[in-house]
């Protein structure tokens, strides 16, 4: 069920981000469905391949899309587990995303362009630095709940009687900061990267997909939105209420996704991007926030 919601969110997510940015710069902006219309247009086109690139370059977009899509299947919805759910499933979740990224990176290297190589090296560095933050956060939540799969972790935070909800929700806020930034980093948005720039030298993600066109490009762009919706779903999961009416949680889900999109739009409107060599520090900061969560969990569980 959750996957359907994520797919619905992915239809309007980037549109909402763009609309927020437009309003903040005093413009009317394109329609909310414009990004998805662009992607549909791209999907109808064929792809052009450089003679210098190998089959890696051709399969990479499909691998990228499918890994993120499968990862989306892991995400639970309140008490209902995701389509795939087992113990320590979040490890596979993280590495599915990493696998998609890995294919993206080697396909960028495959083109042999010096720009794409540069973008690939940046992307790899940042996702490497971002990884501890994800694991410490999820691990701490796991420690708090005593479970080790997404659905169990999330449901026990809200539905078990143990622990006070205040602490659980305040940890949830910290965790959502981590997920928000992870979402920004994973999708290469401001302040880490600028999706609007046309200058190859400053790009991270965009420069890696310079050579992709048509169907492949559409697939990559759609995967980007899907990733956003995925992180939004994780955040929403932190805040579900223990209620018998599922409709309330559906509302919470969508309002958190919309809030997430608005936040991304706000960040992009009001912040400048960081200098490239400061990005690692910013990303490492996320790990320290997640350590804070870890500490909070330790205190709650009485381990320290």
């Amino acid at each position, binding site marked *: 069920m959750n996957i359907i919601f994520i797919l619905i969110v992915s239809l309007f997510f980037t549109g909402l981000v763009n609309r927020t*940015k437009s309003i*903040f*710069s*005093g*413009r009317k902006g394109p329609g909310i469905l414009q990004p998805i219309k662009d992607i549909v247009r791209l999907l109808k086109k064929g792809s052009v391949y450089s003679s210098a690139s190998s089959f890696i370059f051709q399969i990479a977009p499909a691998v990228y899309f499918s890994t993120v899509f499968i990862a989306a299947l892991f995400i639970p919805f309140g008490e209902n587990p995701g389509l795939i759910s087992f113990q320590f499933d979040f490890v596979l979740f993280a590495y599915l995303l990493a696998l998609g990224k890995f294919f993206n990176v080697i396909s960028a290297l495959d083109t042999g362009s*010096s*720009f794409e190589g*540069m973008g690939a090296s*940046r992307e790899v560095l940042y996702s490497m630095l971002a990884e501890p933050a994800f694991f410490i956060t999820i691990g701490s939540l796991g420690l708090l709940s005593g479970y080790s799969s997404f659905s169990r972790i999330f449901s026990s935070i809200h539905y078990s009687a143990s622990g006070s909800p205040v602490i659980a929700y305040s940890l949830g806020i910290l965790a959502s900061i981590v997920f928000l930034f992870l979402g920004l980093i994973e999708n290469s948005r*401001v*302040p880490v990267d*600028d999706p*609007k*720039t*046309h*200058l*190859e*030298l*400053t790009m991270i993600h965009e420069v890696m997909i310079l050579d992709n066109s048509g169907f492949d490009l559409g697939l990559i762009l759609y995967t980007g939105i899907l990733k956003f919706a995925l992180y939004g779903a994780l955040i929403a999961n932190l805040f579900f209420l223990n209620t018998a009416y599922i409709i309330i949680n559906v509302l919470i889900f969508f309002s958190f996704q919309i809030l997430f999109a608005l936040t991304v739009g706000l960040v*992009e*409107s*009001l*912040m*400048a*991007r*960081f*200098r*490239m*060599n*400061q990005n690692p520090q910013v990303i490492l900061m996320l790990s320290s926030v997640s350590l804070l969560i870890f500490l909070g969990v330790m205190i709650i569980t009485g381990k320290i």
Partner: protein
Amino acid sequence: MMMRKYITIQNNETIDFRTIPSLEYKEFLETNILFLKDVNNHCVNYFGFPYAGKLKLVCCIANDSKARIKLTCADINIGTNDVYPSLSAHNLALNIFERELSENFGIKYSDHPWLKPVRYPVDRFDKSSQISNYPFYQIESEELHEVGVGPIHAGIIEPGHFRFICKGEQILHLEIQLGYQHRGIEKLFLEKNKLLQRVILAESIAGDTTVGHASAFANIWESLCGFEPDEELRFVRTIALELERIAIHTGDLSAICGDVAYQLGSSVFSRLRTPVINFFQAWCGNRLAKGLIRPIVNNYIFTSELRKLLLKILDEYEPDFNEMIKKLFHNPGCLVRFEKTGVVSYGQALKIGAVGMTAKASGLNRDIRLSHPSDLYKNFVHQPVIKHHGDVFSRTQIRREEILQSIAYIRSILEKIPPHQNRKEISPKPRENAFTISLVEGWRGEICHCAVTNELGELINYKVKDPSFHNWLALALAVRRNGISDFPICNKSFNLSYCGFDL
């Protein structure tokens, strides 16, 4: 009495070309090097052209404290195997001029540091040297990598090739190759003999400095014809120059914000630029002020309605601009990107002969409006905006302060609109054997045009120098030891002209 080695003139003054004493090359070199020892002097133009079977070298050195320009000449033989000592070995600022001379006429220098071709014109001396076979500077190392950008710009503005040598993300060296837009402007000036054709040529030297180059041409032509521009012509040129400065500086601020992904600044500044250029549209029918500046005549009367409109535009512009610039300069995310990025030190700026905004950001006071004023600049004491850090932030600050200064200038000039003079029937001819130099401070910096006529009063040489001619080297120096991802913001903070360089 000793023979005079040089002749001194003022900005926009016409003299008999034959009165400039012709020196032996060695004496020419020594005299000019001696002049340039004084920091108040800088070379505004140094060029050569075939004259009476020989190559005539003309060096124009401006004294910024006395508003005088010293001219020296030398005749050398072309097509021989003579090797000359270079001026660049003594003063690096002249290197670009000597590179140009060597490319066009095949002059051989014994001690020039780097005879890299400037722009590969079709009529260059050595036809075998092509952009495609130019050996770029290379370093052999396992740890370094080379990144080539262009000649097609990612934002499709203008073509230029940038070759970086990087260590990881850090730039160690940048080599810039231009010339992809060479149109032979200087040659076209001689071939097109209608005045209208020439002034249109001047307007299209660099599209963003239409007023600057057209004013330089208009001033030179009027001086050649012995015509003293009246109050109205000066008024029009001064207003147009300052408006162009406001418009382009505002656009640059927008682009600088865009390069650090500061969306608010980017969109607000680009909105602010529009009414300013739209004023040109209302005045002369072209947003880039093409057609506005003409020698001797003014076709677009500055009416009191236009005055009212301009004042209204400025009144609306100023508060919005101040608010946005305050936001920008209080945004830590932006400041951290601007400060200490792309530094050009005072020493470097002086050494390479930087001009205009690039020089002023590094504490080097080079502003023609102060040092060699023409038009209405003689009437007010211009205080150039000088900054000292030479970084992106300094260049951004200069833009802010120059915009506010220009608005104040325009307001004071607008107090009195000179009467319109209908002078369509007059079309005087240029003097014979004349030499004129015209210096104009465009928004980017010092624009220098030089013209020489023959015994029939026809142009035999027209030399154009855009400020970018010197300043590209400043960019190459500024980006060293910066992250490669900071290159776009450095480049934008200089905003140099490709076509103004390529001619």
